[in-house]
């Protein structure tokens, strides 16, 4: 679907003060690939996503991501980065996904609002549209964020621990959505902890421990995680 969905990393190094979070990561995500990023805590997984999204300064190296320049990149950070007490309804949150259409200075159009409702229905939040995000459970909030991602219609989708603290039913529903994005030819990169899920659903895996330990087909790469 998207010829520009590729992401190339050229020796990406990120430092926070004196601490090196990511060092010399080199490689590429093919357009339409579905990749799991795994590694211990502090291995630089979130930093890698931020580097691709362009929200962290690189000490060395470069990231080539045409989708980012075209604003066709979507990034779902860890929930801690989002202020859930903000007075916003689910419908408003999902409609933000159409930002590319309405931009900073205009309101979402009625057509866009209708699409937002559709997306909310897709993730099973039809009953919750008028609720405040502060009233949602953890799982419902994730669903709402996924609905926003649907609306963003991005070529490259970055997910940081999308299934953390989510019940099984929600995980199954969101994983379905993720597979659908893959079938639609979008590039999906997800930070995950559940290695069984990685094995069954993710064709590619990147194992990080500040450096890249392994990157490629999951069955070949994943053993590096144990080593």
């Amino acid at each position, binding site marked *: 679907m998207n010829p520009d969905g590729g992401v190339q990393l050229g020796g990406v190094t990120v430092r*926070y*003060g004196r601490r090196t979070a990511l060092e010399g990561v080199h490689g590429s995500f093919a357009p339409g690939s579905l990749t799991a990023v795994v590694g211990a805590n502090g291995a630089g997984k979130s930093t890698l996503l*931020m580097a691709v*999204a*362009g*929200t962290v300064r690189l000490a060395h190296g470069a990231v080539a991501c045409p989708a*980012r320049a075209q*604003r066709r*990149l*979507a*990034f779902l*950070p860890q929930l801690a*980065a*989002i*202020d859930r007490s*903000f*007075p*916003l*309804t689910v419908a408003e949150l999902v409609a*933000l996904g159409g*930002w*590319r259409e309405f931009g*900073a*200075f205009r*309101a979402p159009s009625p057509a866009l609002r209708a699409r937002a409702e559709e997306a909310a229905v897709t993730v099973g939040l039809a009953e919750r549209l008028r609720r*405040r995000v502060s009233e949602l459970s953890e799982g419902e909030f994730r669903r709402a964020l996924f609905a*926003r991602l649907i609306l*963003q219609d991005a070529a490259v989708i970055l997910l940081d621990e999308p299934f953390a603290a989510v019940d099984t039913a929600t995980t199954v529903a969101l994983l379905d959505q993720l597979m659908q994005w893959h079938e639609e030819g979008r590039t999906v990169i997800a930070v995950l902890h559940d290695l069984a899920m990685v094995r069954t659903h993710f064709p590619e895996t990147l194992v990080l421990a500040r450096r890249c330990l392994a990157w490629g087909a999951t069955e070949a790469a994943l053993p590096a995680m144990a080593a």
Partner: protein
Amino acid sequence: MTAAHSLLVAPFETLGFMRSALVACLALALANGAVGTLLLLRRMSLDGDVLGHAVMPGAAVGYLYAGPSPTWLTLGGLASGLAVAALAGAITRRGARDDAALVAFYLVALSLGVLLVAWRGSNVDLVRVLFGTVLAIDRQALWQIAAASSVILLAVAALYRPLAVEAFDPAFLRAVGARAGYRAVFSMLVVLALVASFQAFGTLLAVGPMLLPAAAARCWSLGAAASIALATAFGLASSVCGLLISYHGNLPSGPAIVLSAGMLFGLSLLAAGAWRRLSPLFGSRP
């Protein structure tokens, strides 16, 4: 009727300085409702406090240079306020926000300002700079306040969406490619609002009419826009109430206004809490 008239209307009818003070407070309430609510939503109330004090050294220099001239107070206050806003922004960008550094800024700025004023001025000058003189607002100051409030309202109206989204989910705003420095722009608006308030409320109280009505409005868990409207209404109410209290009780006006706003906050906390507990009984919420 006449009792109510002499209690509520006569002070403004008979005294020009009360009218000036009222108009100034109303103009400030319009700007403060918007800026204060966004400040709370962005969890930057400490920054507001710091910037309020950051205005002090510059205003003090202006004061030393030209006496109590509104223009020089404003220019000096703007200069030092913006300088500290830039420094505070740099601190926040270096990773985790450092509250201790922000507090250090505010203590240093306040002390420096007090030293500067005390060096050349009298205790009266010092009290003026610290607590403001809302009853001594002249026409020139009024124009400046009105201009600043207009600029702030227009800017917030134009930038409302990105400012709100950045408070809610900053990574999303960056990912959709909005790379403008909204944080810096917002800090500038806060400094402008504080400088406008400085004449009326002084460096110690200027942040009060900004934060307290907004905090009171937030108790009612409305949407962001409705919260701004309610904060503005609370700001107007506390201004009128505070001015009347200060007139009838022969008390300083700035603190009376801030206290009124504080009382509104307390009442809102209690009333909203009671409402939350009682509303299930009336079945007004599923």
